[in-house]
């Protein structure tokens, strides 16, 4: 148990000698809504990719709830407790809404291959539990009605919600949301803000958020880190950071 759910120490990565991200130090407390912002190309998604094991960091390390998980595979990191959504929605497009969530819940079931194929009692009990859990999750997100719809047929806003629900289904300690409000109108964004806050409160969740929509960020986040050209420009409480002249200059230019 650690004071911080996520702590990164000088996290950095270089590609062919070019330092894409360097010396990123994040300290995120439990139940915080933490924002990672910065101009395009600053390296925010790269940080996410390192935190979820898609890339191995070149330098530095990070710890989840006190445990060093640097360099683990995406599968292991998910099992340890980090789940994410993607900038370009990555749903399982040919599968139904509930199946998408059920995939996320897969690791909660201990039913092995033999038991599943031969439909032993363990299959029935775990399957019932999984389905009940999935439906509950969908109900909370208002997606239960469409649980049999194929995921790619959902409207955009609901696809986003489904992606978040699916990530939550993996029972994480930390939820990474990569530009969840991208492509949304003000109405959908307001709903999303509520959804994220709801998730934090009801799922005892910590959320790390990449976002460009400053109104969302200022309404939602407790603390921010600003990245620019792969390095930390500023970090701290939302009001302080957003009023920092350096930050303003980075976004708006001279």
């Amino acid at each position, binding site marked *: 148990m650690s004071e911080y759910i996520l702590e990164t120490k000088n996290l950095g990565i270089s590609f062919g000698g070019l330092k894409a991200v360097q010396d990123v130090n994040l300290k995120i407390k439990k139940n915080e809504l933490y924002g990672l912002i910065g101009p395009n190309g600053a390296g925010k998604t790269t940080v996410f990719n390192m935190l979820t094991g898609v890339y191995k960091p070149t330098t530095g390390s990070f710890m989840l709830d006190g445990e060093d998980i640097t*360099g683990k595979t995406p*599968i292991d990191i*998910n099992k340890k407790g980090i789940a994410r959504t993607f900038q370009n929605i990555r749903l399982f497009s040919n599968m139904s809404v509930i199946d998408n969530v059920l995939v996320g819940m897969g690791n909660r079931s201990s039913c092995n*291959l033999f038991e*599943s194929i031969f439909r032993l009692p363990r299959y029935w009990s775990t399957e019932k539990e999984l389905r009940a859990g999935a439906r509950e999750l969908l109900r909370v997100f208002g997606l239960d009605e469409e649980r049999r719809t194929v995921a790619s047929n959902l*409207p955009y806003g609901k696809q986003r919600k489904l992606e978040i629900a699916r990530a939550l289904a993996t029972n994480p300690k930390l939820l990474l949301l990569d530009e969840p409000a991208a492509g949304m109108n003000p109405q959908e964004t307001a709903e999303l803000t509520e959804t994220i806050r709801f998730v934090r409160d009801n799922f005892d969740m910590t959320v790390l958020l990449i976002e460009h929509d400053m109104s969302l960020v200022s309404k939602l986040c407790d603390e921010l880190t600003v990245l620019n050209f792969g390095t930390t420009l500023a970090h701290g409480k939302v009001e302080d950071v957003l009023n920092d002249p350096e930050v303003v200059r980075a976004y708006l230019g001279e």
Partner: protein
Amino acid sequence: MKKPSNFKLKYIINYILVLALFIPTAIMGFTGSIKGSSALLLTQIAYSMVLAVSLNLVVGFLGELSLGHAGFMCVGAYIGCFCANYMHAVIPSKLAVLVISMLIGGISAAVFGLIIGLPCLRLKGDYLAIVTLAFGEIVRTVFMNQPVFGGALGLTTQKYGKLLYIIAFVMVLFTVFVSQNLMRSKHGRAIQSIRDNEIASRAMGVNVTYYKLIIFVISAFFAGVAGVIYGHNTTPVDYSFFSFNYSIEILVMVVLGGMGNISGSIISAAVLTFINVKLQTQLSGDLAALKQLIYALILIVMVMWNNAPALRGIREKVNIRSLIDFFTEKVLKKQETAPEGGIDPPASASWDKIPTKIPMDAILSTDITPDNPYEADAPKKEEKR
């Protein structure tokens, strides 16, 4: 306890399809009123069903193109029948010999499935297809040159007798049982998620390596079993049968029946095998070419119909489900009662209904690019503090 409403048609339709063919012909067989040629045909239909369903596991559910299915069949046929030839001297019961040799054939093919699956883990679609094709050819060449397996003349096997098809159909039922139960479980969902979006699948904790291997192994197992059945149905077991062309024929069955559609595979396997055999008697060179032409057109048309982005609109309107809905509406004349007046639905609900499908991919982004040309530098060793 299972509620009665769990008893849905879709869970048993596949068994019904198989039994519809199996039960009448089994009865005919036991009463002795079945012809030898019909029995041969039925066995062929049976192992074609096994092949189609097992290939569908890899192609339709996992989403990878395996062009070496005939190769697995070849392994099973040779090894299984070879063992059967020896067992006949030792074990009196023909049935036992058959079952054991099917197991041996299946397991040996499964081992090969593992061997070929391991390198395929790192390969993408095109390369994987070629590797499976290469594997099929290698297997064929190797077996063809072993004198112990009969060399170029093939492996002679004991003719089995008319009731082979009954065992074969039992095997079909088992194949359906395993495939269906596998796919309707958390494992099946995991496998399909790999097909739909492998990166997201990994991010959700799905053990991709394990599942890819499992599917290859199970698919190969059933191909091997089918090979043993074939080997007992046809003698000699001839290496030239297990060609790349046969792998394509099985692929056509899968594509025609619908990828990921077990019922479709069962039906198309039966239909295509039937047509094939019936035409065989009249197959001169020309008809063989015509058959190939039709198969080719089936492949192209089916794939384009199901996959071309431009046809998406038409596809959504014209498919089995919508046709059923259309009929139930027109025929049953269901009236939809308009909701009574009352509270307006909240404003946000109307936004939800607008299908906004903004193609985010069209916008340059810094998302995960699988074909990132730049290698990340290796992790530097931590300096001791």
